[in-house]
C-alpha cells in the first residue's frame, strides 16, 4: 500500500507540474505581455513602461517568474483577466460551481442508469429486450456528445417543449421568483445537459457493470445465496452488486480526463455558464490568463479526484491489496 501510494502521489505531482507549466508557458508564449495590450499605453514613455513592467515583475528572469506563478497558484492567485477587470479566480469560481453542479448531476444519473441497465443485462444474459437496450446504449455511446445534445434539443426542447433550450435560469424567474421557484427553474434547465452527459457516461458504466455482474453471477457465494433459496433479486442486490462497486468507481476514475472534454462541449451547446463556456469565450478573446488559470484549475481537480478514487478503491477492496500490474 505504501509503495502504491508513493507511486500514485508521484504520478499526481507530475501531472500537476505539467499542467502548471503548461499554464505558465501559455502566458509567456502568447505574443506580447500584459503591458503591450494595455490601452492606457498610448503616449507613455518607454521609461514609464519599463517601470510598470518592473512592478508587474515582467523584467525578472523566467525562472523567478515561474516560481512566482507556482506560488501564486498554490495560494489561489492566478493573475488578472485581460478583458474583464477581475481576478481570474473570481471569474473561474462561479463558473466552476456551475460546472460541478452539471457534471455532478450527470455523473449521478450516469451511475444510476449504467448500474441498473448493466446489472439487468449481466444478470439476465439471455433476455432479448435487455440486449436490445444494451445495444441501443452502446450506439449512443459512439455518438458524439454534442450531436446527442443537438438531437435532444431538437426533440425535447423545440419539439415537445418540455425543457428550455439552454442557459441556466429564466431571466424573469431568477429576478422575481421565490426561492423554490428559482431552484425549480435551475433544475428544469439542468435536465437536458445532465441527460446528455448521463447517456454517454452511463453507457460506459453499463458496459463495465454488465461484465462485472455476469462474472459475479458465477462466484460461489452468489451461487450459494441462490441455492439456499434467497430470491433472485436479493441474490443480485445483496450479494452480487457489492462486488461490482469498486470496478465501476475505477472506470469512472479512468474516464475523468475524457469527461472534462465532454462537459466542456455540452456546456457550450446548452449555454450552461460553466468553466467550459468561460474558457471557450476566453480563447476567442485571447484572454490568456483566464485560459491558463482554467487549465491549472481543471487539471488539479482531475488529478486530485483520480488520486482520491484510486486510494478509496485500494482501501475499500481487500482484493486490490495484492500487488498486480496497473490497469490498461
Amino acid at each position, binding site marked *: 500500500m505504501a509503495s502504491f501510494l508513493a507511486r500514485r502521489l508521484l*504520478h499526481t505531482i*507530475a*501531472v500537476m507540474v*505539467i*499542467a502548471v507549466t*503548461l499554464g505558465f508557458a*501559455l502566458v509567456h*508564449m*502568447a505574443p506580447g505581455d500584459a503591458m503591450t495590450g494595455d490601452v492606457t499605453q498610448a503616449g507613455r514613455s518607454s521609461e514609464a513602461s519599463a517601470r510598470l513592467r518592473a512592478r508587474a515583475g515582467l523584467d525578472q528572469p523566467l525562472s523567478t517568474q515561474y516560481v512566482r506563478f507556482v506560488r501564486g497558484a498554490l495560494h489561489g492567485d492566478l493573475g488578472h483577466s485581460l478583458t474583464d477587470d477581475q481576478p481570474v479566480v473570481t471569474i473561474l469560481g462561479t463558473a466552476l460551481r456551475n460546472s460541478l453542479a452539471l457534471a455532478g448531476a450527470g455523473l449521478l444519473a450516469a451511475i444510476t442508469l449504467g448500474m441498473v441497465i448493466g446489472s439487468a443485462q449481466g444478470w439476465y444474459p439471455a433476455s432479448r429486450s435487455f*440486449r436490445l437496450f444494451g*445495444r441501443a446504449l452502446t*450506439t449512443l455511446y*459512439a*455518438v*458524439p*456528445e*454534442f*450531436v446527442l445534445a*443537438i*438531437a435532444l*434539443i*431538437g426533440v425535447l426542447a*423545440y419539439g415537445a417543449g418540455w425543457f428550455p433550450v439552454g442557459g441556466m435560469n429564466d431571466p424573469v424567474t431568477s429576478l422575481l421568483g421565490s426561492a423554490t421557484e428559482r431552484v425549480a427553474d435551475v433544475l428544469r434547465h439542468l435536465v437536458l445537459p445532465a441527460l446528455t452527459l448521463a447517456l454517454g457516461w452511463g453507457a460506459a458504466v453499463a*458496459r*463495465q457493470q*454488465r*461484465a462485472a455482474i455476469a462474472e459475479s453471477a458465477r462466484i460461489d457465494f452468489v451461487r450459494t445465496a441462490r441455492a439456499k433459496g434467497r430470491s433472485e433479486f436479493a441474490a443480485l442486490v445483496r450479494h452480487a452488486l457489492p462486488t461490482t462497486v469498486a470496478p465501476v468507481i475505477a472506470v469512472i476514475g479512468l474516464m*475523468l*480526463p*475524457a469527461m*472534462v*472534454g465532454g462537459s*466542456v*462541449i455540452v456546456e*457550450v*451547446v446548452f449555454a450552461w455558464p460553466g468553466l467550459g463556456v468561460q*474558457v*471557450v469565450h*476566453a*480563447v*476567442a478573446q*485571447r484572454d*490568456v490568463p483566464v*485560459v*491558463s488559470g*482554467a*487549465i491549472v484549475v*481543471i*487539471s488539479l481537480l*482531475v*488529478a486530485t479526484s*483520480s488520486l482520491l478514487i484510486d486510494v478509496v478503491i485500494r482501501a475499500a477492496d481487500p482484493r486490490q491489496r495484492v500487488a498486480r500490474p*496497473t490497469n*490498461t
Partner: protein
Amino acid sequence: MKRATAVLLLIVAAAMLAPWLAPYDPAAQLDIVQLKNGAPSLTHWLGTDPYSRDVFSRAVFGARTSLTVAAIATVLSILVGCAWGICAASVRDSLGDALMSVCDVFRSLPRVLVFLGVAVLLGPLSAVTLAIVLGATAWTGISRLVYVLVRDISARPFVEAARSMGATRWRLLQRHVMPQLLHPVAAAAALLLADILAVEAGLSFIGLGVRPPGASWGSMLQDGLPYLRSAWWLTAVPSLLLIATVLSAAGIADRLNGRNWRGSLAPGSGAP
C-alpha cells in the same frame, strides 16, 4: 462488418471524389438574399445554409476535411504509440516502467486542455496543424496496448523457442512479435479513428478546429445550431454523416476485436 465497411467506403469515396460530386463551390455564397437557409430542393438536394452555401457540397467537402484530419492524426498516433510501446517493452524493466509512467501522466491530463492552450496561442488552425495536435494527444492509449501486448507475446513459448535458437532481439521483434500486433492494433486504430473524428468535430463545433470558411462537419453543425428549429437540414445532415462514420468505424473495430483476437487482454471484447 460488411455494412459498416460499405458505409465507410462510401463516405471515403465521396470525400475523395468531392470536386466532381459537389455541384457548387462549398465556400461560394450563391445568393445571400434568395437562398438563405433554403429548404432541400431539386437544385439544392440538401438545402442551403445561413450564408446561402450549398449544404450538399459542403457536406462532401467537409467529409474530406474531417476524414483527412482524422486519418493523419490516427496514423500519427499509431506510429508514435507503437514506437513508444515497443521501446518500453524491449528495454530493461526499470527504464520501461519509467517510459510507461510518462505515458500514463500524459494520459491523465485532459486533452481538451491541450487543445485550448494551442488554440489560444495559435488561433484557428490549419487542417494539418489540427491533425498533428490531435495525433500528439491520442497516442498514449495505443502505446499502453502495444506495451502490454509485446510483453505478453515475448513471454510465449514460440518466442522463447526462437530466442533459444539464437535469434537476435531485432529478429524476434520483427519476425515473431510484430506480426501478432497487427490485428489488435488495427482494431485499436479503427476505434481511434472513430474517436478522433468525434473529437475533431467537437473542436470545430466550439470554434477551436478548422479555420473558416473551410467546411468540416463540426463547423457545419456550429453554423446550423442557431437555426435548429427553422432549418433542420443544417444540423441533420452533418449529424447523420458523423454518426454513420463514427458508428461504422467503431463497428469495424468491434468486429476486428471479436474475430481475430478473443484474447485475455481485452475485457469484454467480442461481446454482442
